[in-house]
């Protein structure tokens, strides 16, 4: 009995200990990445290449999901608004929910599972096959050469993807609301323009997506760099990237929303 309790306590202690150790390493890792990111800007080709892999190649999934999310919002919103006889407000509903929340959050979640996991797997495999060690042997700093370009590529791609997601979603809402159902086109756009504020809504959405970009990219490169150099370790790290960055996005979203939209 006592043994069972002791082993449970030991397990909890081990996890807490490990968590704090990893948190500390992650913070140090972020500082190192920022410190050595000069290379990522001086040799901008490296970053461009990563923007291609994590940003451009995520375009299809982002655009298609954005379109469908907008179309569903259009259908659902119309169904609800029709009961109150205010289906002209459909544009407001679609635009505000996309620009404020769904754009950054859903694009962030998709980005984490599409690009974040790939970054983790790549860096983890580089570590497992001792490429990172080989770089160090050749006096190439792997953080400057491998990690920083991927980090900055993620930070740049995320707001662009979120903006495209929102724009595509609004187009989807327009397609369903105006073209398919027949909401008046003029009031769809004019009410949207009257209620969506550039600074309050759009800029805050962009800020959100930049924060998510930093969080997802950091988690992805860190998990890859910290992965156990085995096949199991890499697969575990990839899973952790998706899980932790999804949770981080949702948690950060709550905090940012609480700061931004307090209804003052």
């Amino acid at each position: 009995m006592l043994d069972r309790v002791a082993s449970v306590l030991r397990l909890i202690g081990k996890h807490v200990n490990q968590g704090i150790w990893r948190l500390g390493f992650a913070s140090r890792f972020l500082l190192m990445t920022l410190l050595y990111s000069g290379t990522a800007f001086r040799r901008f080709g490296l970053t461009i290449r990563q923007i291609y892999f994590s940003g451009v190649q995520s375009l299809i999934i982002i655009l298609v999901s954005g379109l469908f999310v907008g179309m569903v919002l259009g259908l659902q919103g119309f169904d609800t608004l029709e009961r109150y006889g205010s289906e002209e407000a459909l544009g407001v509903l679609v635009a505000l929910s996309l620009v404020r929340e769904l754009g950054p959050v859903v694009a962030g979640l998709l980005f984490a599972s599409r690009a974040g996991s790939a970054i983790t797997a790549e860096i983890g495999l580089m570590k497992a096959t001792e490429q990172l060690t080989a770089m160090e042997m050749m006096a190439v700093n792997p953080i400057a050469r491998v990690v920083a370009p991927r980090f900055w590529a993620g930070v740049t791609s995320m707001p662009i993807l979120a903006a495209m997601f929102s724009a595509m979603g609004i187009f989807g809402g327009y397609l369903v609301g105006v073209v398919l159902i027949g909401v008046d086109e003029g009031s769809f756009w004019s009410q949207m323009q009257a209620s969506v504020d550039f600074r309050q809504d759009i800029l805050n959405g962009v800020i959100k997506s930049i924060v998510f970009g930093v969080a997802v990219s950091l988690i992805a490169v860190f998990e890859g760099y910290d992965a156990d150099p085995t096949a199991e370790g890499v697969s575990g790290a990839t899973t952790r990237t998706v899980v932790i960055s999804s949770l981080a996005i949702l948690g950060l979203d709550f905090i940012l929303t609480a700061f931004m939209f307090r209804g003052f």
Partner: protein
Amino acid sequence: MNRTVLDLWVGFFVAAGIGALLFLALKVGNLSSANMADAYQLNAKFDNIGGLKVRAPVKSAGVVVGRVSGIRFDQQDYMAVVSMDIDSRYQFPRDTIASILTSGLLGEQYIGFSAGGETAMLKSGDTFKKTQSAVVLENLIGQFLFSKAAEGPQNGPQNGQDKKQ
């Protein structure tokens, strides 16, 4: 993948992102109408501003001529002081009345100007002489009930008889 082709794709990507942001700013948001080229400030004192908010539109004859830039409370005479940025293309006579109106039954509140007849125009920093406060629905209902109750004993039964006939 050739480097130049790769650059091309990333260029497309960034350009499309900027395009999406522009679309959001101009077509979805109200950036295009928000920045007035030149604005001058007018102040108005109200007994009650109801649910008026900063950045609410200022309209004259239904056309947006400016925006509410600030709302504060005057400790001296216990009134709300609303400052407005008015587009300098529009000038209003000195005896213009500023009133707080509601668009629709449940819509947002805005400030409406009904222009007066004086020849002298309001200048930057001037305060309106005549204002009309927001109509608070609760007060209105209260007044209605009160007046109904006051006239009730005399008129009530007669009305009832009228209906029967």
